[in-house]
C-alpha cells in the first residue's frame, strides 16, 4: 500500500516578518505544524563594509564598525581599536581603558535589554516586557548621548583611547542607573522566569548540547547557556578586565530558557563591573595622540572582545599604507546561527520563532 505523505508545503518566515529581528528569511518546509526542513536565506542587509574599509584610513573606518552591529556599537568600536592598537603597538592610558570597560558593559546592558524584550515578545507576552526593557534601555542611551553625542551608533572610541572625556554629570547619572537596575532585573525575573506559561513555552526548546556548541564554535550566551564556562573577558582579558571581580553565569541544559536566564544574570554581573570601574576610575589622559594618517607597520593582528552576542573578533592586515589591506569582522550572531537547522527541525513553527529569538541575532552583523 503506497503511503503518500501528506505533502509538506514551504512557508517563508520571510524577510518581512514581525519576529525575525530584521531582514532575514528562513524557508521552512512544514508538514502540518511540524517543521521538516529549515533553510536560511541571508544577505538582504549586505553593505560590503569589509570592502569599503580597504579604501579608507584606519580612523575613517571607525564609523563602519558602529553600523555592523547597530545594537552594540561600543563593543564593535572597542574590538576594532584593540586590533589596530595591537597592530601599531599603541599603548592606551589606564583612564582610557577604564572608560572603555564602562562603555562596553553599559552597551551589554542595553543590548541584553533589547534581546530579552524581543525574546519575550516572540513567546507571546505581547509588548509588556519589551516596553519595560525599553524604558530601562532609554536611560542607558541617554548616558551614551551624554558622552558620545549619539544614542545608537556612538563612534566614541578612537585608536589609542576614547574620543572625549566623561562629562561631569555622567558619574551621578550612571550611579543612579546602577542603583535602580538590579531591582528592574528582579522585576523581570518575577514577571518572566517564574511564569508557568513562559517556562512551558521555552523549556526544552532548541536544546544545544555542550559538544554541539563547541563544535559549531558558538560563543556568548549561546555557549554559556549550554553549560560551557567560556568568556573572553576571563580567558583573554583586555582593557584591564582582570582587575575586576565578576562571575560568568552558566546554564544547565542549553535550551532557550537557560539562554534567557544566562542573559538576565549577565546583566547583574555587568552592573557589578561598572560599579567597580566607576569606583576606581584613574585620572590622567584618556587617549594617547595618534597621527590621523596612521601607517601601522606591515603585518596582521586579530583582537577579540566579549560582545553581548559572543566573541566579536577584528582581523586587520596592514601593508604599511594608510588604509588597511584587509579588514575582517568575526560576527558572533552569524556563527551562533549555524545551528538553527538542528534547533528548529522537529519542532513546530511557534518553537522555531522562540528558538530564533533565543539566539538573539542582529542582521546588520550577519550580512555586514
Amino acid at each position, binding site marked *: 500500500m503506497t*503511503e503518500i*505523505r*501528506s*505533502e509538506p508545503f514551504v512557508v517563508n518566515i520571510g524577510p518581512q516578518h514581525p519576529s525575525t529581528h530584521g531582514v532575514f528569511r528562513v524557508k521552512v518546509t512544514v508538514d502540518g505544524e511540524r517543521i521538516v526542513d529549515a533553510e536560511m536565506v541571508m544577505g538582504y542587509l549586505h553593505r560590503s563594509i569589509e570592502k569599503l574599509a580597504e579604501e579608507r584610513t584606519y580612523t575613517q573606518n571607525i564609523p563602519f564598525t558602529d553600523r555592523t552591529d547597530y545594537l552594540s556599537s561600543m563593543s564593535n568600536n572597542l574590538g576594532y581599536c584593540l586590533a589596530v592598537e595591537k597592530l601599531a603597538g599603541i599603548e592606551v592610558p589606564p583612564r582610557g581603558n577604564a572608560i572603555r570597560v564602562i562603555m562596553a558593559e553599559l552597551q551589554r546592558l542595553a543590548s541584553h535589554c533589547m534581546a530579552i524584550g524581543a525574546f519575550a515578545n516572540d513567546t507571546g507576552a505581547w509588548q509588556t516586557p519589551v516596553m519595560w526593557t525599553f524604558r530601562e534601555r532609554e536611560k542607558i542611551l541617554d548616558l551614551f548621548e551624554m558622552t558620545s553625542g549619539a544614542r545608537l551608533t556612538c563612534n566614541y572610541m578612537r585608536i589609542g583611547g576614547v574620543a572625549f572625556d566623561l562629562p561631569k554629570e555622567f558619574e551621578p547619572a550612571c550611579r543612579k542607573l546602577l542603583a535602580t537596575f538590579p531591582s528592574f532585573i528582579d522585576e523581570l525575573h518575577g514577571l518572566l522566569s517564574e511564569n508557568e506559561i513562559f517556562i512551558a513555552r521555552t523549556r526544552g526548546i532548541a536544546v544545544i548540547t555542550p559538544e554541539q556548541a563547541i563544535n559549531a564554535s558558538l560563543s556568548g550566551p549561546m555557549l554559556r547557556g549550554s553549560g560551557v564556562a567560556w568568556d573572553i573577558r576571563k580567558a583573554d582579558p583586555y582593557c584591564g578586565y582582570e582587575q575586576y571581580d565578576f562571575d560568568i553565569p552558566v546554564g544547565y541544559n542549553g535550551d532557550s530558557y537557560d539562554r534567557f536566564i544566562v542573559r538576565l544574570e549577565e546583566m547583574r554581573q555587568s552592573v557589578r563591573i561598572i560599579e567597580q570601574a566607576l569606583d576606581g576610575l584613574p585620572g590622567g589622559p584618556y587617549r594617547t595622540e595618534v597621527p590621523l594618517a596612521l601607517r601601522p607597520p606591515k603585518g596582521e593582528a586579530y583582537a577579540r572582545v566579549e560582545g553581548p552576542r559572543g566573541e566579536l573578533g577584528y582581523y586587520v592586515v596592514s601593508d604599511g599604507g594608510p588604509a588597511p589591506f584587509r579588514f575582517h569582522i568575526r560576527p558572533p550572531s552569524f556563527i551562533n546561527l549555524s545551528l538553527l537547522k538542528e534547533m528548529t527541525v522537529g519542532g513546530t513553527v511557534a518553537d522555531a520563532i522562540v528558538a530564533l529569538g533565543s539566539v538573539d541575532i542582529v542582521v546588520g552583523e550577519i550580512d555586514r
Partner: protein
Amino acid sequence: MIEGAGPVAAFWGLSALTLLAAGGVVVSRNLFHAVLFLIVVFLGIAGFFLLLSADFLAMAQVIIYVGAIAVLILFAIVLTPRASRDNAETRMAPVALVAGVAVAGLLIPAILDAEWRTLSSAPALPVSDLGRELLGVWVLPFQLASVLLTAALVGAVVLVRSPREEREEIDEEERR
C-alpha cells in the same frame, strides 16, 4: 395551522432561502462554496424549528450542524488538498435526476390530497418535557446513542491515524 402575518411571511421566506441554498449546493462549481450553501441550509432548517416553536432543537441544530459537522466537512476538504474540488457530477447524474424527480413527484401529490388530522393550535413543547422523555421512556436508545458515538469516535481516529503517527507512538513507548 399557523396564522398571523409574521409567521406566514417567515415560512415563505425561510423555505425560499433553504431551497435556494440547497440549489446552491447542487449548482456551485467550487466545493467550498457548496459547503457554505449547506451551512445556509442548516440555518434555514434551524429557522423552521423556531417557527415550529421547537427552540431547543433549533439551538441544538445550530450548535451541532453549523458548529461541528460543517466544520468537520471543511476540515475534510482541507485535508484532501490534491483531490478535485470542482463539485463535478458523475456519469450517473441523469439517473440521479430521475430518481430525485420521481421521489418528489410521487410524494408531493400524496401529501397534498391526503387530509391530515391537524390541530388548530398546539401548545409549545418545553425543553423539560424533552429532557424527561429522553431519560424516561427513551433511556435505552439514549444509552445506545452514546455507545454509538464513542464507537464512531474511536473508529474515525483509527481510520485516519497514518502509519507515521503509529511509529511515533511506538518510539515513545520504547523511550519511556
